[in-house]
């Protein structure tokens, strides 16, 4: 038994896109225990509920996260619409679903790039981000923003997409799919990639259930869990089956996300086929009545939870967001126990941490 030492990891670390701090208790190059701490970028966004009217608050809520910003806006609008009893038009539901799935494509491509960068495959990283750029261009064309879209509002969406743009969107994504297939082969078959991923960070199905893992982390451990199956948006009409892997290691998590990119492209194509004509929003007036409403949404990183409490005024009394990274941190700590020090960056990356979401 060697001497135990503690190595601080983060909040500033070359491999981490966001600030999370870990105290790694090391014994002979093996991690015995990891103690996480967060709280470096708390911004107090939930407090702003007191100062912003519910119609303007959506622009604040969107800024919780720069990657899943559309989903946050959607989740918040869903709770307020539930409180006020607003039925939004079907076309708006379709548009929301299309934008949300586009977010998933760009989030997963970003993550695949970061993963490649994490294990030192620099050119693969650049290729992933090159493809992601096209999705961002699609966002800019349809919403006006590349990262923050400001397109979701209480009662529907603010901008419509015409038929030509929708078709162009599908053709761009299909073209991207072809190029992505080459990258997929590298991710799946390349031996240097496999050396870094296969068998690393094993999370069993029982542990995933016990530690409440969500999203791709849970699906890679064999749990068929996806909030899109519960039927928010128009997912019930798109007929999909969640991507589930059973290996439970970093390689399985990569495969799940890789397959989800293809699945999202198919879902967008199907939604474009089915989208009906009609209004994109309904007028919203008056105060938010007293009451509480909860909504769940499948973000690219997993299940996100939204809560709003109305107070019969233009200002909500409380909002609360529980983000997927928050739920995946216990599972990450579990996988870190017993791993090599050199694998720590891989394990942190494969939960796809979004600390700014978690702290808000």
């Amino acid at each position, binding site marked *: 038994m060697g001497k135990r030492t503690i190595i601080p990891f983060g909040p500033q670390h070359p491999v981490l896109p966001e600030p999370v701090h870990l105290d790694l208790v090391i014994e002979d190059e093996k991690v015995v225990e990891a103690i996480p701490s967060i709280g470096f970028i708390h911004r107090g966004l939930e407090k702003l509920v007191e100062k912003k009217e519910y119609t*303007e608050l959506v*622009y604040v809520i969107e800024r919780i996260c720069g990657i899943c910003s559309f989903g946050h806006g959607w989740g918040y609008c869903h709770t307020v619409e539930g409180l006020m009893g607003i039925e939004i038009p079907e076309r708006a539901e379709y548009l929301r679903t299309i934008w949300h799935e586009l977010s998933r494509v760009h989030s997963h491509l970003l993550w695949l790039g970061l993963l490649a960068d994490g294990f030192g495959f620099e050119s693969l990283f650049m290729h992933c981000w*090159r493809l992601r*750029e096209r999705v961002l261009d699609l966002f*800019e064309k349809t919403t*006006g923003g590349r990262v923050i879209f*400001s397109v979701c509002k209480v009662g529907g969406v*603010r901008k419509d997409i015409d038929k030509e743009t929708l078709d162009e969107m599908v053709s761009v994504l299909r073209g991207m799919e072809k190029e992505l297939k*080459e990258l997929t082969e590298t991710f799946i078959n390349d031996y240097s990639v496999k050396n870094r991923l296969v068998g690393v960070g094993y999370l069993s199905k029982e542990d995933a259930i016990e530690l409440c893992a969500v999203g791709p982390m849970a699906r890679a451990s064999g749990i068929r869990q996806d909030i899109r199956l519960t039927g928010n948006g128009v997912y019930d009409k798109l007929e999909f089956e969640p991507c589930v892997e059973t290996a439970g290691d970093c390689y399985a998590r990569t495969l799940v996300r890789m397959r989800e990119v293809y699945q999202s492209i198919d879902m967008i194509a199907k939604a474009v086929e089915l989208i009906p004509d009609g209004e994109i929003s309904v007028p919203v007036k008056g105060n938010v009545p007293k009451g509480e409403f909860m909504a769940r949404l499948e973000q690219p990183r997993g299940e996100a939870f939204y809560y709003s409490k109305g107070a019969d005024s233009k200002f909500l009394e409380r909002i609360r967001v529980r983000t997927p990274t928050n739920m995946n941190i216990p599972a990450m700590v579990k996988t870190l126990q017993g791993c090599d020090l050199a694998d720590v960056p891989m394990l942190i990356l494969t939960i796809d941490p979004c600390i700014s979401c978690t702290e808000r």
Partner: protein
Amino acid sequence: MAAFKLGKMILRSLFKKPATLMYPVVPRVWQERTRGHIENEINDCIFCGICQKKCPTNALVVDKAKRSWTIERMQCIQCSCCVEVCPKKCLTNENTYTTPSTEKVVDTYVGAAPEPKPVPKVEPKIEPKAEPEVVEEKAE
């Protein structure tokens, strides 16, 4: 096999256009919907202050007395909220960005002084002069 694949990719990349934009030489093409910066057609503005009230970041200050509309460029998040609520539709979201700067930029638009309201011409009433009262002084 891997070398063959690599060779194919290298050859293809040699003859392909670069994925990145040679930025200052090749200008960026903005989309029609790009939310770049807010402009105000100040002569149409009625300085009602609704945009200031609705702005999520308090980037706008409207002064009705001075007829000025001020925007803090760094604080504005280009959400287009003000454009949507403007009753005169004098606010627009242009698709170009403002020039980058290292200091906080505050732009103030001042409207022209309102034209003086035409005063209705009123004919001055000519009242007949009252006859001066003659007070007879009593002779003592």
